[in-house]
């Protein structure tokens, strides 16, 4: 179990757009969340990170994430395929994966849940809204929800 008070939990963010990375960091900061945000730009990099290979092979470059924020429409290996990998690997399948998207389309939302995301978050344009959303998201996954222990595996 990790909590907000312990050493900063790692959040792996798969996001290909620099503006969005910047905005997300600002939002985390304004929400007063002390998190270690680690960014990858596409699905392949994300898998490299999770399996500590390629650019992330050196020790300490890829601390295990407590939460994954995933843009569903990324270049190369797309977010949807990454989720399938994660859910198929028993060492990773417990990871909470939150989809970040700009699409309000009910069809896209339904599809995202169908492939195994834990929550779907529409990126607000308005900063106060964004901050509020990320705060409640963090509170839920980092304190309200009880997640399976990394040590106890089925």
């Amino acid at each position, binding site marked *: 179990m990790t909590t907000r008070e312990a050493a900063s939990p790692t959040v792996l963010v798969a996001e290909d757009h620099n*503006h*969005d990375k910047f*905005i997300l960091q*600002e939002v985390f900061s304004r929400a007063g969340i002390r998190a270690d945000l680690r960014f990858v730009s596409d699905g392949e990099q994300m898998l490299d990170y999770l399996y500590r290979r390629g650019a992330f092979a050196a020790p300490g470059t890829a601390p295990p994430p407590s939460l994954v924020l995933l843009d569903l429409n990324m270049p190369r290996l797309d977010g949807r395929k990454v989720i399938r990998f994660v859910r198929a690997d028993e060492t990773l399948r417990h990871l909470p994966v939150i989809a970040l998207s*700009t699409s309000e389309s009910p069809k896209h939302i339904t599809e995202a849940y169908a492939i195994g995301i834990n929550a779907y978050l529409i*990126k607000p*344009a*308005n*900063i106060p809204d*964004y901050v509020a959303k990320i705060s409640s998201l963090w509170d839920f996954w980092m304190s309200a929800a009880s997640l399976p222990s990394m040590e106890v595996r089925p």
Partner: protein
Amino acid sequence: MGEHAVPDDDAPAVDLTSCDREPIHIPGRIQPHGVLLAFVEPALRPVSVSANVETFAGLPVNAVLGAPLAACMTGPSIARLEAVLAGDDPAAANPIAITLRAADGAREVDGILHRHDGLAILELEPRGEDPRPSSAFFRGIRAAIRRLQTAADLPQVCAIAAQEVRRITGFDRVKIYRFAADWTGQVIAEDRGGGIPSLYDFHFPASDIPAQSRALYTVNPVRIIPDIGYTPAPLVPDRNPLTGGPIDLSFSVLRSVSPVHVEYMVNMAVHGAMSVSIVREGRLWGLISCHHTLPRFVAYEVRQACELIAQVLTWQIAVLEEAAIVRHSVRVRAVQQRLLHGLGSRRDVNAGLVRGGDEMLSLMDAAGFALSGFDGVTTYGRTLSEPEITALVGWLSRSDSRDVFQTDCLGAAVPAIAADPARVSGVLAVPLGRASTYYMLWFRPEVAETVTWGGDPHKPVRIGPLGERLQTRASFDAWREVVRGRSRPWQPHEIVAAIDIRDLVVDVILSKAEELEGVNRQLARSNDELESFAYVASHDLKEPLRHIEAFAGLLKESLPKDPDGRLGAMVGGIETSSRRLRALINDLAEYSRVGRQARPLAAVPLDEVLADVLADLRPVLEETGASVSAVSLPVVMCDRSQIRQVLQNLISNAVKYRHPDRTPAVAVRGTVETGPTGEAERPAGAEPGRHVRITIADNGIGFDEKYREQIFEPFQRLHGPDEYEGTGIGLAICRKIVQRHGGSISATSTADTGATFTFTLPMRSLDDGDRA
């Protein structure tokens, strides 16, 4: 007592067509100016001879029948006969010089040989006055042929033929007799001696030359009756030993004439006659008919010369007619080119045809033209009335034949159409296709023609003294009849021209349909592309916009101390502009979605839709104190969510543009109307002429009516965004939705008093839901 009482002295419906049943090719008799001998080859012993053989050969029938020919003709004659029979084409050797052993010495005759029905038939004729035709005779023939070849037209070539035949033969009267399609005949040229009455232009009923006579004329072109007062000589025996039947004299030159025909000629005061057939493409076109007041014999070789003249005449007729047809078809092609040009540059086939109307009428020698089927009937010139054309086309489309229809007597062909014959008697109707009421029609007026008959053809004929045969009319005095209700007949090449023009019009229509379909496809495609573009663009525009808004938000919260609020105002400006841009992009996406997200139509009660809309608008209605009344909203076939959006946009506009001094009042009213909706195209399944009209009237600020069209364009606003919120897409979306449903939308207003928006939806049968 029978039911069918027939008056004793009247025999209606009986005419000389009874002659059609007379077997004239097997009369069993010949004319006595010659002798007939029939053989079964190779034996040259006669199996049948004519009873008058004695007058020629001085031997009784019994001495000739079955006996060697040497009994009655010389050895050299027999040798020539044998040589001809051994050759390939015995008829080509005719006439064969034969010397008979008569009691009073040798007698020179012409032998005319032919084979038919298994028999070799030798006919012996007098050689005539001249021993042999002179070279002057042949020069005369050559001159005749040259004259025929110089003729410029049909009347002239026929006149020359009549003159030349009369010059060669010496008959009193030579006429060119032409058969019409119904086998009535007309004298179209004549040459006659002094004191001989003219028969020029006389018509004769078809029964005068019955069918089996015409059949014999067609195969055996020359016929001579030297003396109508002859006593026929019977064949002894009249039996073809090969068939057991009578001897077939179809190709004989001496064949005896039907007693009816003899009577006919006597009544005409003709005692010697000859006819030469004019046969064109296997059909009897006419006759060169020669009459003489006294008996007259023409020798075989002179008859051959006449046959040659008839042949040249036939060729000349063909050449002249074909030249006329070629000239006509050249004109047809020229007119077609101009029509094609006229039609090709014009959308409307009807207008194109009418523009070329005069030319087409002159081409078809018609007085009027009509096109039936394209939005009713289009007429040009003197035609039947539109109801008559509709009735005629109805009659044509019910008839079995889907082919060209033509008549020169509409009154007889289609009695149901009681048209004025002086206006239209001839009709040529060409179907445009399988669609049953699409026709091109040409019309010809009556040609009131005076026909001069050789005797009254309508006069009932009397049963004559010749048993069951009929007596011919006794008088051939001119009997004039005015023929009404007939136009000039349609010539075969004119019908072909009409079909050519039809094919051209069909081509143009098909290519137009193709062209139109192509344009429609292209339009639909570019529409689709535009809508997808708008959708994709709106999506892609949103992303940077979201970043701008986010950065503005971040900036706002990171502002340093800003005592005069200038920085805050600038960031606020970014934020409001971003919001407005977002609204525009969203509306653009929505506008593009109207066509993209088409749902099938369903029966929707509009009062339910209005209730939903009012529930949605409740906050603003309560805030403004607005009242909305509704009267007789029907159930319509529509896309519920789209029509809901229309009502929502119009009602929220009515409230939004309320008058500052009045509480907004909105009246929604539905009516079902009949009549044109103002839309050119009626959607599938729509009931013709019926539509629902919905009006939304308010008491707001209204608008200047000069903007009544402009307000329906996307992003057109009459007010600044600071005065009234909104992007100006609402009415554009309304119009797009209404048009998608096959209706129209419009607005009227008196500024400062209120505005009324009206939209129509076609009335569709309610079970026709999936057709949109």
